[in-house]
Structures are given as structure tokens and as C-alpha cells.
């Protein structure tokens, strides 16, 4: 559909435009130097009128050296040897003597003094023609990257002659990326260079539904307006809208300012103007008969100013009624810079359609952001969902396990330079390190405090600040780099609106994986069964032959180990610093509490809700992520009032207490 429309509109345009250059004469493909020597005059004394002939000959020759030759020529780095008229390149234009290089083979031909050769300096006009030909040459190239480069240069510096070239390319091009570019650039050229409305409108409409940035950049300038005023609306002008002074779009002050600038009204006298006039007219401690000491109210100053006006010492200030009358005598309107109403209407309609689609994709992009944030929260909280959610232990050092995981990644990366390999080592290693730390902590501290949950909080807080400080002593307080491997460095891009960085995609996958694995461990394995038994009733579980101490130790280790892996993932996109854990601890607790304590499904729901909500609030006020966090926390506080046990609350005996 788009293609036929384009072909049609280009056809219309070509019929209207002046016929392009005459067909070039055919030349047998020969040596480049021979070709040049045959037309030596045309090369050496090229002028804007004559250069096209030799260029056509060169293009027709299809010789592989031609692009480089044209580039060198255009850059004024082509030389001609005076003795035999041979065209040569030079290795270094500033050297003396110059080293001459053959234009075809690239072999060194010998040296020459600067007097023995003539540097060819095509003027700006000739350079332009050469550049256009180079574009043509590049467009005919077999290498898609070169064709793309040619499109770039057309887009940044469009010329009328490019139109036919692009039309030709559109018929033959098979690469979808290139086609998409051409389908935007071609209408842009038509819009820019056509004088008639019909092809321009057709070009505009061919962009309909195209959400790329360059399509929008083509259409937006067509709708640019200028604010003007006149006594009556001018006939035949392409007027966007009329503006009422005092409306949102045009304040009374700005409107009056315009009148003053046009010389249609006297300037207003501001309070600071009054003050400076009064200051300039102090006579014997009084102004206009009023003592200076009394001039500390606006009312007294107005009286003094009125007295000065009466004495002809100051310009009269226009009253509010004068201002209203002056504003009423003229109309204010926005006029399109583009004169054709048909074009602006078509542009407006097409752009509105595009904006609707862009809005949809923005929403999609925002949803992806929300999901990605939710996966981060989930990842940070999932370890806590086990230690706090399942075991009921408040581990304030959970954030420090995340930090230790990230530092494990950093250490591995500084030992193993290959990023992919280091990541593959770091993830299991981080699990092992934090698992051991968790087990040690459970055995040494938490085991003794199971009946005093609030005191666990204080003890683990102590461990948290001690761990932070030890890491700070060992690694320093500065941010350490944890570089993602190359295959995670880029981003996944759907179009100009929707894109998401690969690290975030990986984190989403990791979060999903964690969820599945943990769910399986807790619900489908012997260990999971024992964990649930011990959390529900340790004494009963013990009498069934389960060792509660061992289960508690393993569960706590599992939760901590998962925090370590999460730390490696978080370290890939966040800063690795000793106090990075504190950024996640409060959010993680809220995630677990909102979701509902005691099951990891609740944590998933809680993280989705908190992440999605925060992005939604950010969307309402995009400049302020702090505000989004604030309102999100307030929402959580209110939410807990209505569902104190979280979204997914355990019922019955399992709820315990």
C-alpha cells in the first residue's frame, strides 16, 4: 500500500519537476587513470557546469576505485604531476618532499617537491556536485551499510536531485531497514522541494501511522506557528487559531507586551519603575510633597507618583481600563509558517493519528518499565520472602547479603577478565558465599532469638552496619564497576518509542526463573515439605523426625544465597557501593508485607503492584522519581490498613501467629 502510494506520488513529482540530467555517454570500462587522462581538462579545470560530464563517465565505468577517487577529489587531496599530467594521491599533504601514490593500485610512485605537482582545488559548487554523485554511487553499492550511510547524508543534507535516486532505489531495495528509511526520507524530500499541494499532501498522508522519530521530525516543522497581532484577521492567511488575551495560551501581560513592542500602546509602569522614579525625584526629603519616611506602603507611593505625574515629572501609567481597551482593539492569532492550508491540515491529521499510535506504544514502553522495576523489587525481596515471609525472621542484614553478592561479582570480574565467564562463575559463587554467611548468622545469632522477633531486628541491624563497614574497609567507599558482558550491554528495540535494555530483560528472566525454582523447592520437594512443617509447628515437626534446627539453618541459608544472586544481577545495572543494600531493604520488606507473608506468590504480586504503581505515578509526573516513591510508600501504608495481612493472605491454621 505504502509502496504504491509512494511510487505514484514520486511519479507525479517527476512529471512536474524539470527533466534530470541527460543520459551519459557510454564508455568502455578501462583503467581509471586512462579514463581520467582522456578527460584531463574536465578534471583539472572542473567547473560547476562541466563537471557533471566527467562524473557521468566515471559512474558509468563502474570501476571499484571510483568512490575513493571522488572522495579524495572532493576533499581537495588529489594532485596532478606537472611533468606528465598523471593524477596521483599524496601520502601526507604537509610533508616535503611529497610521497606520490598511484590512484588505482595504491603503490608508491616516488617523491616529488611541492613545486612539481599541482593540487586540484575544486570550488564549493564543484564539491557539491561531486558529493551528490558520491551519494548516487553509494546508493548503488552492494554493501547495505554504505547504502545506509548514503541515506544518512541525504537526510542531513537533502537536495532535489536525490529524489530520482531514492525512487530508483525504492524499486530495487530489498533490505527492510533500508526500505523503512527510504519510505520516510522520500516524502520528506517531496514535502521540501515540491511547489504543488497535491504531491505534498500525498507525501504527508503516506507517512500516516509511521511512528519513527524522523517521520515526526518531518511533519512537526510544517505545523510551526508564529504569534502575530493585527487589527483584523488577514484574509487568505493560513491561521492556526485566534488567541484571547488572558487565556492560558496568552496571558494579558504577554499580549500587552506585544502591543508595546509594536508601538501600539504606552508601556506599563511597574512597581520597581515607580520606585526608581520616586528615588530620582527626592527633593528635601520629600517626594511629591510626601515625606520619604512615609513611603513604606504601596498606597503612599501611588499618591506620590500621581503627584509627580501631575507635575509632569513622570510618564502617566496606563490604567487597567486603558490596557483592556488597547487589547480589545486588536486580534491575536497564530499563523502557520507554511502557507498552504491543505498541507497543514493534512499534516495535523496525520500527526494526530501518529500521536495516538505513539501514545499506545508509550503505554507499552511504560508497562515494560513497570515490569522491569517489578522484577528488580521481586529479585531483591525474594530472599526476604523466605527468611521473613516463611520463617518470620526479620533480617535487617538482608540488604547486606545483596551487597556481598554484588561484591563477589566484582571480585570474580577483576580476577577473570572475560565478562561472560566471570558472570557464569560469579552467580554460583555468590550463592555459596552468601549461603555460608547466612548459615553462620543463623547458627551464631538468630537461633537464640526465635522467640524475640523484635530483638532479631536489632541484632541483625548490628550485623548490617558491621558488614557494611568491613566491606568499606576492604574495598573502599567508592563505586566499583560490575560490567555486563557485551551481549547484555545493548538494548532490545521494537521501534523508536519502545525499547528496553538487555540487562533488564535478563533480570526479568532471572526473576521468573527464581520464582519457578523456589515454588518447586517449597512445594514439590522433601526439603520444602519439611520447611513448611517446621514453620507451622516446630515441636510437632520435631516429633515427626524432622530436625528443626537443621531445617531453619538451611532455609535461612537458601534465602540468603538467593539474595546473593540477586546482588550480582542488581550490581549489573546499579552502583556497587558498600551501602547499596540500604536502598533495597525497606522496599523489600514492604514488598513482602504488601504481597502477603508466608508465600512467594504473594511476593510476586506485591512486587508487581509496587513496581507498576511506582511507574504509573512517575508517568503522571515524569520529572520526579522521588515524588513517585513518596506517594507509592503512602499508598502502601494506606493499603496495609485495609488488608493488614497483604494481598494473598494465608487462611486458617497456616496463618499461625
Amino acid at each position, binding site marked *: 500500500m505504502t509502496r504504491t502510494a509512494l511510487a505514484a506520488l514520486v511519479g507525479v513529482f517527476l512529471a512536474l519537476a524539470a527533466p534530470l540530467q541527460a543520459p551519459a555517454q557510454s564508455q568502455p570500462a578501462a583503467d581509471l587513470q586512462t579514463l581520467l587522462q582522456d578527460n584531463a581538462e574536465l578534471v583539472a579545470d572542473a567547473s560547476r557546469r562541466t563537471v557533471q560530464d566527467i562524473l557521468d563517465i566515471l559512474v558509468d565505468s563502474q570501476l571499484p576505485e571510483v568512490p575513493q577517487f571522488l572522495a579524495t577529489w572532493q576533499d581537495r587531496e588529489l594532485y596532478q604531476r606537472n611533468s606528465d599530467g598523471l593524477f596521483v594521491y599524496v601520502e601526507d599533504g604537509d610533508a616535503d618532499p611529497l610521497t606520490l601514490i598511484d590512484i588505482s593500485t595504491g603503490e608508491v610512485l616516488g617523491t616529488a617537491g611541492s613545486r612539481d605537482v599541482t593540487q586540484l582545488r575544486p570550488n564549493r559548487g564543484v564539491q557539491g556536485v561531486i558529493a551528490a554523485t558520491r551519494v548516487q554511487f553509494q546508493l548503488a553499492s552492494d554493501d547495505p551499510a554504505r547504502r545506509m550511510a548514503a541515506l544518512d547524508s541525504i537526510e542531513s543534507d537533502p537536495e532535489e536531485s536525490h529524489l530520482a535516486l531514492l525512487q530508483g532505489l525504492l524499486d530495487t531495495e530489498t533490505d527492510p531497514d533500508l526500505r523503512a528509511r527510504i519510505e520516510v526520507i522520500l516524502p520528506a524530500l517531496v514535502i521540501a522541494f515540491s511547489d504543488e499541494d497535491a504531491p505534498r499532501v500525498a507525501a504527508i498522508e503516506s507517512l500516516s501511522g509511521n511512528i519513527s522519530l524522523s517521520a515526526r521530525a518531518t511533519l512537526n516543522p510544517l505545523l510551526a506557528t508564529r504569534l502575530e497581532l493585527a487589527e483584523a484577521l488577514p484574509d487568505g492567511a493560513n491561521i492556526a487559531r485566534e488567541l484571547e488575551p488572558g487565556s492560558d495560551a496568552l496571558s494579558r501581560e504577554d499580549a500587552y507586551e506585544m502591543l508595546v513592542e509594536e508601538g501600539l500602546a504606552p508601556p506599563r509602569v511597574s512597581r520597581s519603575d515607580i520606585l526608581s522614579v520616586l528615588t530620582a525625584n527626592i527633593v528635601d526629603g520629600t517626594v511629591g510633597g510626601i515625606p*520619604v519616611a512615609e513611603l513604606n506602603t504601596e498606597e503612599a507611593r501611588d499618591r506620590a507618583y500621581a503627584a509627580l505625574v501631575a507635575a509632569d515629572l513622570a510618564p502617566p501609567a496606563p490604567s487597567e481600563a486603558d490596557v483592556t481597551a488597547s487589547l480589545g482593539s486588536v486580534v491575536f492569532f497564530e499563523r502557520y509558517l507554511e502557507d498552504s492550508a491543505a498541507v497543514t491540515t493534512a499534516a495535523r491529521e496525520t500527526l494526530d493519528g501518529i500521536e495516538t499510535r505513539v501514545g499506545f506504544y508509550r503505554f507499552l514502553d511504560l508497562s515494560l518499565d513497570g515490569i522491569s522495576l517489578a522484577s528488580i523489587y521481586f529479585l531483591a525481596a525474594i530472599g526476604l520472602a523466605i527468611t521473613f515471609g516463611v520463617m518470620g525472621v526479620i533480617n535487617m542484614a538482608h540488604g547486606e547479603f545483596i551487597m556481598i553478592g554484588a561484591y563477589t561479582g566484582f571480585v570474580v570480574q577483576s580476577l577473570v577478565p572475560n565478562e561472560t565467564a566471570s558472570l557464569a562463575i560469579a552467580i554460583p559463587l555468590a550463592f555459596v558465599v552468601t549461603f555460608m554467611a547466612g548459615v553462620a548468622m543463623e547458627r551464631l545469632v538468630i537461633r537464640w532469638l526465635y522467640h524475640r522477633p523484635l*530483638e532479631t531486628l536489632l*541484632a541483625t541491624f548490628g550485623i548490617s*552496619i*558491621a558488614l557494611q563497614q568491613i566491606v568499606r574497609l576492604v574495598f573502599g567507599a567508592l563505586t566499583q564497576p560490575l560490567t555486563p558482558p557485551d551481549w547484555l550491554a545493548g538494548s532490545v528495540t521494537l521501534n523508536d518509542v519502545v525499547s528496553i535494555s538487555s540487562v533488564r530483560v535478563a533480570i526479568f528472566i532471572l526473576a521468573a526463573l527464581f520464582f519457578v525454582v523456589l515454588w518447586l523447592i517449597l512445594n514439590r520437594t522433601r526439603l520444602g515439605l519439611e520447611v513448611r512443617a517446621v514453620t507451622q509447628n516446630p515441636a510437632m515437626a520435631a516429633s515427626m523426625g524432622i530436625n528443626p534446627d537443621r531445617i531453619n539453618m538451611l532455609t535461612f541459608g537458601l534465602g540468603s544465597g538467593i539474595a546473593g544472586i540477586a546482588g550480582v544481577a542488581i550490581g549489573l545495572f546499579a552502583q556497587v557501593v558498600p551501602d547499596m543494600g540500604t536502598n533495597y531493604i525497606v522496599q523489600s520488606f514492604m514488598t513482602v*508485607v504488601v504481597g502477603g507473608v508466608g508465600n512467594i506468590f504473594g511476593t510476586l504480586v506485591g512486587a508487581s503492584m509496587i513496581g507498576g504503581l511506582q511507574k504509573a505515578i512517575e508517568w503522571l509526573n515524569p520529572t520526579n522519581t522521588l515524588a513517585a516513591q513518596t506517594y507509592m510508600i503512602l499508598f502502601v*501504608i494506606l493499603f496495609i*490498613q485495609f488488608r493488614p495481612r497483604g494481598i494473598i493472605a494465608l487462611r486458617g491454621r497456616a496463618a499461625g501467629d
Partner: protein
Amino acid sequence: MGNSIFVRNRSVPIFIAVLALVALCVTFLSPAYGTGALSVSFTKVLGMTLCLCLAALAMDLVWGYCGILSLGHFAFFGLGGYMIGMWLMTARTEAVIRANLAESPIPPTEAEVSQATALQIFSVVGAEDWPWMWAVSDSLVLSLVMVVLVPGLLALVFGWLAFRSRVTGVYLSILTQAMTLALSLYLFQNDTGLRGNNGLSGLQNIPGAEAIGQERLSVWFFWASALALGLGYIGAAWLVSGKFGNILRGIRDDELRVRFLGYPVEVYKLVVFTLSAMICGVAGALYYPQAGIINPDEIAPIASIYLAVWVAIGGRGRLYGAVIGAAVVSLLSTYFTSGRAPDVDLGFYEISWIDWWPVLLGLGFVLVTLFAPRGLAGLFDYVVRRQDP
């Protein structure tokens, strides 16, 4: 006097006596009224420590007596500081502006002074108008009312929401922590009217007291802090010694049973939580003029956790425990992190106290929790019991 609080609670007369003794010592060692053995800045540190003790006392009321572990009490402390800080900053800036404008040939209008003051205060966050929350900042009396009212109101609303839906234990702790985090994030924004992360500064310059000088002001603030702590102690002791205190302890030990006995548990909790927040507000209002600056970092969740830890280390459920904990830990922290403590050279490694103090402090929390659940004050019980079986 037979039923006086001084008799009913034996710790009160001892505490007041010790506090008076400390105040006397500081006065005689201060640069303005005594030998000058204490520097001005250390006098301020001592005054600030008393304010922290008052906050710990308030914390002990809710946690030690009512079992509500609030991890957001520094929000109330900081709000008190912000309330008085607004007056201090407005009054002082206005005085400076008036002095500058007095040199202009035509006397300024009130509107001009107010505008110039606002510009001076808020230009750092790119604003020039008075935010609504500064409405009473030109009145000392109203600002002092706000010091008590605003933290009290926040505690009342928050407590009403939380206690009504029976959020208890750990969940309540996490909610209070979320509250203080939300407040500090809110204050960190530049456009919310309290100068964002710049906070309020220059609070040590008391308007109208420039001639007195920091040497004497520091002692005056110390006295004021001591007075506040003394009154707070007597008030808290009176509160927990009567029937009200018994019910609070009942709620702490078995909330359900107290509820079934017919007591409105929510009301008791709400009253003690709000009162405690008000005391914290007063403590903050006395603290920040001595500290000189307040910014949203002060309200970050970690500060409130420290407050809880001081109370735990001192010993919960006995008012003097909270005071001892706060004084000992915060003074030790100041000593070790100020660089005054001599480094220990082990030959192969030099232990720098500034670096290692947080590690020791953290491990100290763990040890106290594990081996001395009654805190430092619990040691007194031990000694007393040995002497008097």
C-alpha cells in the same frame, strides 16, 4: 506529698539529682560561666546528647512500656526541628534583609521585605515565593505550637490508621519505617517547600540574640535541654507509675487479654504514641538550634533504628535505661568518630577508631541483644539483687 511521684518512683529523685549535678558541672566547666575546660562545641554536643536522651525516653514510653517498636520516631524529632528551624531561618533572614534595605533612599514596604526574604531563603531551590507550610514561620509562638502540634498530628493520624486495623508487632515496625522513609523522600524534593536536600541552615544564629554570643548561648541551650529532659522524665514517670502505666504494660504483655477486660486498647496506644511523638518534637526543636543545620538525611530510617538500639542497649521499660543507653552510645560514637581516640598500633596493622568503631558498635548490638537482653540498666538490677536478697 505522700503520693508524690518522687516517692512512688524511686528513680525520679535520683535521676533529677544526677541531672542537676551534671548541669552544675557543665556550667562550672563551661567557657562562659566557669573555668572554660569545656569548649563551646563540646558544650553543644552535651546539650544535643540530652535532647537525644529525651527522644530515647519518648521511645521507651512506646516501646518499653507499650510494646510498640516504632522505627520512625526520628520523623517526629526531625519535624520538631523543621518547625523551629522555619522560624529561626525566617526571623534571621528578615533581620538581615531589613538591615540591607534600610540603606535604600526610600523605606521598603512590608511586601518588599517579605518578598526579598523569600527570595533569599528559596533561591537555592529556584523558587521565590513562600510555600504554604511557612505560613506561621514569622511568629515564634505559633512556631512553638507547631513544634508540638505537627508531630503529634502526624502520630495521631498514622497511629489511628495503624492501630484501628490492628497492625501490630513487626508489621507496625515496618510501617513506621516506611513512614519515615516517605517523609524523608518527600523532603528531599526541591519543590516541596523545605529547601530539599539543602535543608535549613544557620539555625545556631538565634535572632535577636546576636549580642549574647555562642559561648553563653551554648550553656543556655544546655540548661534548656536539661530542663526539658528533667520535666520529660518526671512526666513520663508520672504517666507510667499510675493506672495508665499498668494498662500500658498490660497491653505490652498481652494485648488481647487487656482488650477482653474491656479497655479500649487502641485509645491507650494512640495516646501514648502521640504523646511520645510530641516529646520527640520538643527534643528535636531543642536539638537542631544547637546542631545548626537540619536536612532530610536526619530523618532517614537508619536514625530511627539507632534510637531503638540505644533504648535496647540501655534497657527497656525503665526510663533511666533509655537515657543511659542514648547518652553512653551517642557520646562514645562522638568520641570515637571525632578522631580524638588514639589509634592502636598492632605492629602489623594500625587500628583506626574512625574506621573500626561502626564494626565494634554493630557487634556490640549483637552481643547486648544476645547476652544482656535487659540492657546496661539490667546490670543495676543484678547488683541490687546481690546486695539485698
